[in-house]
């Protein structure tokens, strides 16, 4: 094999090959096959299988297309096909020659050898971050692109879960689940250990270790740590070299500031959400923010196409919605003036549980701290203005306020902390009062997203609910009021009238019954703010639900969420406003059966609860 000098000379000018030594580019050039594509010819179609070749355009122009829509036009020196080639996943777009074009085709083996080097990965990650193939180009051009050149601390997604060596495996697993994390750090004084969820699975579940054992029995110690100022690309290379997927990240003072995972640095779907969050963080005006948030729905489509599980899509969506809410508040407060008091913005409902999807309403409330001796009337005026403006901007960003007006724009939901606590206590004392249960349900699912988040807020008031059997009983009744849409032997129950006739209501029929059971069961087990899956996990572990029922509900919830996501992505792609009304005939028979099974399982759990608590089922 010999490399043709003209091909080498061309490739060394093109990123990322410009960063390689000539020897590596020569090896790449040896593998080049030159193809000609006449104008209009498909180079590879969308999404049938993974591509096996990297392609570099030598002459002409190539369109990136998705369902007939041109997303991008690439010219000489640009390459394509690498994401699919490296991930082994089907392409999420097709490519077509827009004019007569000459491309260099490089087989996967030869291409990966080069692309897997740090310079190649850096380029790829940058390209994926730009993510023009999902998001289109335009104002994005000004944004920082080189995630992997940034210090690794920039890619940390949340504070680390840290425990002591004596913490039980059960407790560790619970904290891991609650935090939505995949690894936790064990503080060993002068060093740290690490426990990943796969350690827990293999060493406890598979290895027969008791869940009462200390985490020190399952941890890896000392863990390989990385300094927080190390670049993302170096960390990624360390990961690849060592075959380790999680590294604790340590600050200059030796404190663990987070855990970095390979996904954080590489995966497309995550990257596009990083990208979006950065765009949101950088927005300096409300118009820029509205513009940045227009990328959220395409990101959801992209993640769905990338086969990201629904649970993860929902959590990414919710994380972005949180970031957006924070930024809107920053901008609105900058417009309105300095707040007369400290206050916190609460997100409620599905967004608080991190289970929001494009169809979800954005429920919100405000709590202000009345220990500042400011004038309550002027505080209400100020907060009312901020809340109205914020919900308006969020609506422009595609987040609709709650249809039942559980919204900070309603003065009823802008209150001082003592007022909220009074209401919460009164709901607890007399849950039969008007709307008490609905309000409790909403407030149990609340999370402060802006403001002083360290204060124990309203949801905490409900922790004492363990001592309030009457409230729990009513919450359980409330949970049993929504029956899944299935009869004993009949098929799926669909809407019989109205706009959604013959449609299945996935939200009220599928999601709500499970969410309500989980809220009750979680509260009965001492958990307030958490995701549905986490609540069910704790309820199963504590005995509020049988472990079997807990798992059944988790699985049913996963299935319904996945169907919801698929349905909404199809609507988004068709340019339709997403909703939760599914035509059961669109499901393949197997999925339809799974769904029926899931609904029956939920109904059966409801019967168990009713029997246990001596409640009547409607």
């Amino acid at each position: 094999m010999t490399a043709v000098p003209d091909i080498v000379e061309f490739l060394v000018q093109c990123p990322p090959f410009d960063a390689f030594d000539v020897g590596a580019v020569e090896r790449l050039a040896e593998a080049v096959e030159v193809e000609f594509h006449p104008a209009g010819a498909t180079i590879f179609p969308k999404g049938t299988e993974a591509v096996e070749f990297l392609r570099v355009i030598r002459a002409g122009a190539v369109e990136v297309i998705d369902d007939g829509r041109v997303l991008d036009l690439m010219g000489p020196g640009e390459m394509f096909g690498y994401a699919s080639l490296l991930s082994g996943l089907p392409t999420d777009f097709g490519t077509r020659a827009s004019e007569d074009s000459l491309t260099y085709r490089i087989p996967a083996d030869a291409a990966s050898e080069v692309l897997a080097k740090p310079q190649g990965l850096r380029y790829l990650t940058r390209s994926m971050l730009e993510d023009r193939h999902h998001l289109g180009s335009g104002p994005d051009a000004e944004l920082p692109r080189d995630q992997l050149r940034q210090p690794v601390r920039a890619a940390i997604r949340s504070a680390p879960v840290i425990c002591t060596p004596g913490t039980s495996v059960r407790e560790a697993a619970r904290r891991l689940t609650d935090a939505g994390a995949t690894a936790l750090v064990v503080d060993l004084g002068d060093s740290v250990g690490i426990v990943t969820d796969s350690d827990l699975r293999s060493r406890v579940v598979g290895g027969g270790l008791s869940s009462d054992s200390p985490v020190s029995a399952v941890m890896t110690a000392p863990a390989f740590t990385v300094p927080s100022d190390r670049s993302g690309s170096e960390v990624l290379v360390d990961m690849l070299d060592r075959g380790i997927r999680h590294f604790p990240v340590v600050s200059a003072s030796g404190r663990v500031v987070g855990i970095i995972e390979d996904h954080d640095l590489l995966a497309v779907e995550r990257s596009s959400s990083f990208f979006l969050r950065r765009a949101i963080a950088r927005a300096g005006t409300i118009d820029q923010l509205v513009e940045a948030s227009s990328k959220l729905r395409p990101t959801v489509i992209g993640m769905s196409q990338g086969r990201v599980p629904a649970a993860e899509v929902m959590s990414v969506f919710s994380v972005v919605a949180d970031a957006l809410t924070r930024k809107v508040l920053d901008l609105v407060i900058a417009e309105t003036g300095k707040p007369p008091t400290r206050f916190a913005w609460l997100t409620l409902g599905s967004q608080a549980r991190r289970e929001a999807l494009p169809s979800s309403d954005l429920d919100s409330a405000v709590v202000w701290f009345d220990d500042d001796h400011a004038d309550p009337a002027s505080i209400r005026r100020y907060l009312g203005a901020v809340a109205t403006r914020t919900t308006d901007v969020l609506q422009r960003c595609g987040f609709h306020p709650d249809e039942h007006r559980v919204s900070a724009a309603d003065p009823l939901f802008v209150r001082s902390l003592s007022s909220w606590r009074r209401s919460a206590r009164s709901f607890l004392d007399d849950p039969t009062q008007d709307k008490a249960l609905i309000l409790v349900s909403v407030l149990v699912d609340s999370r402060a997203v802006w403001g002083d988040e360290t204060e124990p807020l309203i949801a905490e008031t409900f922790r004492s609910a363990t001592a309030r059997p009457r409230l729990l009983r009513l919450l359980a009744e409330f949970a049993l009021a929504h029956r899944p849409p299935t009869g004993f032997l009949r098929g799926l129950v669909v809407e019989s009238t109205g706009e959604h006739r013959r449609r299945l209501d996935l939200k009220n029929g599928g999601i709500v019954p499970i969410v309500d059971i989980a809220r009750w069961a979680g509260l009965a087990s001492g958990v307030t703010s958490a995701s549905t899956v986490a609540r069910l996990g704790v309820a199963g572990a504590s005995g509020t639900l049988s472990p079997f029922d807990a798992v059944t509900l988790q699985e049913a919830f996963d299935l319904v969420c996945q169907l919801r996501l698929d349905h909404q992505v199809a609507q988004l792609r068709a340019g339709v406003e997403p909703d939760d009304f599914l035509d059961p005939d669109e499901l393949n028979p197997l999925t339809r059966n799974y769904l029926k099974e899931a609904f029956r399982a939920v109904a059966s759990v409801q019967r168990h609860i009713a029997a246990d608590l001596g409640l009547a089922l409607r």
Partner: protein
Amino acid sequence: MSRPSRIRSTAPPATATYPEGGGNRGRTPWRLAHFCVVDLELSGLDPKYDEIISFAAVPIDAGRVVAGNAVYGLSRNTRPLPEESVLVHGIRTVDLADAPPLDEAIEPLVDIMTGRILVAHAAWIERSFLDPVLRRRGVRLRGPILDTRDLGHLLALERGVPSVSSSLSELARSLGLPVHRPHHALGDALTAAQVFIALATLLDGHAPQTVRTLSLARRRVQTLSVYPAGGSPARRA
């Protein structure tokens, strides 16, 4: 019409060393056939006097130019190089001092040509210089060498546009293709190979192309030039 050119041995022992390439029959769709694009740099254009001083060949399989398998070489001149030829290709006697003599240097070229249909730009030159070299090895070329110049004229006629000049560089540019180092055997062979796959693909869009239809390009150009209206049913108005 004879079959397209590939190397054939005239003597039984040599036949064994040049096995027939598969799928190169006349009716084979062009993408299934195996081609070899050849370019020679010469001391002049008179086959009786001038000699090959540099050569390159680029294989084409499945309609793609397999650049990594390209062959390039120099061969030592036996006579002084005319100054005007040095001005064209830039190769001086001193550059050839260490090169092997032609019959030895040509070995890799013969290897890569074996079993492949030859393609060249202005192919009569390649033919007239390769013939005697191969003959000395007991091998001869049969049939025409596919000619990118003829194919270029044919496409212009099919499209009803005027032909560009006969030069390889002009033809490549008119197709929007890169022009590699001109008058360097490997550069020209690569340019010609890319021009060939482009022309074959584009002609294929007018009517399905086989090894045989491509080899008949010259004749078809003549027919279309004389009877432009009825020449091709697929021709654009």
